Every structure is written in C-alpha cells, then in structure tokens.
C-alpha cells in the first residue's frame, strides 16, 4: 500500500513540519518514506508545499503529482491542487481560512476549522498539527500510534517543552467531529 500526501499552505503555517512528522512516523513504523519540500524563493507568507509518500514498497518518484490526501491550509493551495487529487481521495480543508467548498464530488472532503481550533487550545501556530490529527483519524493507511515517538524526532531537544502542546493539537484534530 502506498499513501501519497500533498500538504500545502502559506510559509510559516508549518507545512514542512507536518510533513516531517508524518514521514518520521512512517519511518518508525518501518515504512518506506520520502519527504520532498518545495524550495522556491519562499518565505513567511509565501506559498509552501511538501510531498510525503508512505509505502510498503520502495518509493519511486518522490514527487506527488496525484495525491491521495491533500491538506489545504489556504485558498491558493486548494485552488491549485484540488483538481490533482485522485478520484476517491481525501481533501482536508482549513475552513477557518478557506470559505469556499470543494467543487469535486468524486473525493471525500473534511472541513476542519484548524486555525480557530488552534487558537482555542492556546496554540495558534499549530493549525498544521490539528489538521494532521484529523488526517490520522480519517486515513486508514495512517495509524494513530507512535505519535509521541514521532514528535520526539521532529521537535528539537531545545524545544522539548513543546511536545505536549503538539500532542494536544494532534488529539484535538483527532477528536474533531466535523
């Protein structure tokens, strides 16, 4: 089984971090993984995206051009990538920042007010992890195990105190019934 994920949003929303978390979680679970960032002249407020592949077989091309999962953290990302999602795929939309609905009918869509939920739990920068929590909940190919272990790999030792709030954000996403 191969799960191809595209995470897209503004620079600063933690798009690359969420991807790293999922990749490390895959690695811990002995999956073959790849993580490929866009690396244009991006900066905070610009656009950023990353391709993550989790697979039971060696990963071929690391470029995700037809994602099974699209995590759209802002409107330009949804506009750009909605058409690329595989039929039967999953689209996760940050409904705080994206007002429009997904127009396609051959995909499953989840609207999560990630940015608003993040503010509610006192972690305004963790909308990314709330959405990631929802992805973990809804995607059969991604287990809800090893969350702490994976966080341990991506949260640097210097910021170890932030592990708990990241975990809380993941849990908030997993618990969100929308």
């Amino acid at each position, binding site marked *: 089984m191969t799960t191809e994920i595209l995470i897209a949003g503004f620079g600063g929303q933690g798009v690359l971090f969420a991807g790293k978390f999922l990749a490390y979680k895959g690695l811990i679970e002995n999956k073959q993984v790849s993580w490929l960032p866009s690396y244009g002249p991006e900066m905070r407020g610009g656009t950023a995206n990353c391709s993550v592949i989790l697979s039971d077989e060696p990963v071929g091309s690391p470029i995700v*051009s037809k994602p099974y999962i699209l995590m759209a953290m802002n409107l330009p990302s949804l506009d750009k990538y909605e058409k690329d999602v595989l039929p039967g795929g999953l689209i996760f939309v940050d409904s705080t920042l994206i007002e429009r609905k997904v127009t396609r009918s051959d995909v499953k869509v989840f609207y999560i007010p990630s940015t608003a939920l993040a503010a509610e739990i006192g972690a305004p920068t963790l909308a990314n992890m709330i959405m990631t929590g929802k992805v973990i909940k809804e995607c059969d190919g991604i287990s809800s195990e090893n969350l702490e272990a994976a966080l341990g790999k991506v949260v640097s030792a210097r910021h170890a105190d932030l592990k708990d709030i990241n975990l809380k954000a993941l849990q908030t996403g997993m618990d969100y019934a929308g």
Partner: protein
Amino acid sequence: MSEKVLMKGNEAIAEAAIRAGCRHYFGYPITPQTELAAYMSKRMPKIGGVFLQAESEISAINMVYGVAGSGKRVMTSSSSPGVSLKQEGISYIAGSDLPALIVNVQRGGPGLGGIQPSQSDYFQATKGGGHGDYHLIVLTPASVQEMADLTSLAFDLADKYRVPAMLLADGTTGQMMEPVELPEEKTVSVDKPWAVTGTGMKRKHNIINSLYLQPDELEKMNFERFERYKLIEENEVRYESYLTEDADIVVVAFGIAARVSKNAVNEARRQGIKAGLVRPITVWPFPKKALADLSKTAKGFISVELSMGQMIDDVRLAINCSRPVALCNRAGGMIPSPDEVLDSIKKMQEGI
C-alpha cells in the same frame, strides 16, 4: 546495522563525507546545496576538521587543490553556476593527478538560470568542463541513501586512481528527505607517497604541479593518465538494470529522472508493454557495454533527462546508433512526470 535516520540528501552527503575521513571542506553558499555547507559548518569545528567559507567558488576549489596535494581527503560543493566557476581549478587538480571530491547539486541553467532541479551539467561533468584532456569519475545518486553511499565510494575511487571525483546530484535529491543508514565511520589509510607533507630531511621533496613545458613530457603525462582512465572504464562502471531482460523498450535515466522513469516502466508493464530501465550510477565511465548488449534484444531506447538532451549522445554512441533513441525531457527546473515518460514509451511502442 546502524539506525535509519531521516535526512536531507545534502546533509547525508556531508555526514557521509565526514565518516569517510574528510576533515577539510571549502565552499561558498548557493541554492539548492547550502544545507551541505551548513552541516559542515556545524560539525567540522567539533571534530577537529576545517570548514571554510571562501570568498568565492574559485577560491574554494583552489583551497581544495592545496589540501589535495597534501594527501588529505578534501571536498567542495556547489550548484551549477558555482561549479562553472570551479572548472579551472578542477582542470588543475586533474592535471596534477590529485584525488578530491566535487559535489554539484544541479539547478537549471544556463547563466544564473533558476534554483529548481536540473541535469543540464551532464556535458560539463562527463566531457571535461575545464580545459585539457581529462575525466572525472562521475557518480549520480538517485536516493538519499545513495547520496551517502556514493560520497563514500567517490573518496575511495578518487584515492585509488588519483583522479578527482564528482557527485552529480540535483536539487530534488539534495532537498528531499528519506531514511538513510549512514556508513560506519572509517579510518582511512591510503598510502600517498606523492603527497606534499614535509620531507623530514629524509627524502627528496615531492612536487605537485600541472605545468610541463616540454611537449614530449606533457604527452607522456597525458598517455599515462589515460592508461588509468582505461582501468577505470574497465573496472568501475556501475549501473542498475530494472526489468530489462525481456524489454522491447529500454529507458535510460539517472538521478531523479530514473526515479520518475521507474514509475513509468511499472505502469507500462501493467499495460502489457515490455519496458525496462537502465539507471547509470556512473555516467563517466558510462555503462556502454550494458547498453550495447541490450541493443541486441531491445527494439528502442528512450533517454529521460532534465536537460535539452545530453546523455542521449552517450546512449546513441553506446549502441552505435543501431536502434532508435528517443528523448523525453524537461528543462529549466521542470521534471518530467511519470505520465510524460509513459507517453514516450507508448509512442515508441507504436513506432517499432
């Protein structure tokens, strides 16, 4: 077996170089290889090594020339425009028969070009980017694991044959993260009696030089060097063959283009087309014999490249133009999709 870690390709090169005994790094920042220099700047001071950000690429390569003359493992890294600046120094290093590693994490060109991945420095790397008759051993990693493994191998081969080696990567393999099992730290003890290390008043001094004003002497140096190149061509060709045994159509691609092509070959097989892939791991020496052998059974070849078509010349030469060779390419930082490669395979299937 050491634990697998997730690393960027650029970082894997740096760590593998350190583990291969490299303690001297000279460079100048440029996207998309800067993580390599950044990693070196963090690690080298902690292990008694040298990290030096030179004032330019030209300066960095000449520092490499100097350390190489002392017999120590040494490297530099850059991306396409920066590697162009290094060409004079690379020619001098080759002309002085010194081992060294040059890493090129390619981006689109010509000129300043862009910062997205490319393979358009193939000619420069394999045909001698600087002046004079010389070759580099050119290795082309297609995964983060190979970024590490081939770095280690490049140092060994450079020492063994006294030639500079190049790791010809691209922006994608440099920037992507994959699990990598890093090679064990090794203690290198290659005998280098030619190195300039001080005579201790016990022997005649060594001279590192590429200047030979007597033409017969210079000719002799060139002939001797090409004897070594011949040995390299006989012994160091490396490539991966994938589903080629019964293949009608053989795709030839290296680096990221090979990763994309593998997807396309798999899809072609699912659709009943007998496609296969040859992935050169060394592009100099080029796997000529492997392709020549396949030309006896295959009906056509496709060269997939992130350039306007450079390796395709070597494919044609390897098979003596005995079969049609098509080009499937993108340029300027664009990467062909598996679908584009598949279309190219189907088109050839219809034509043969």
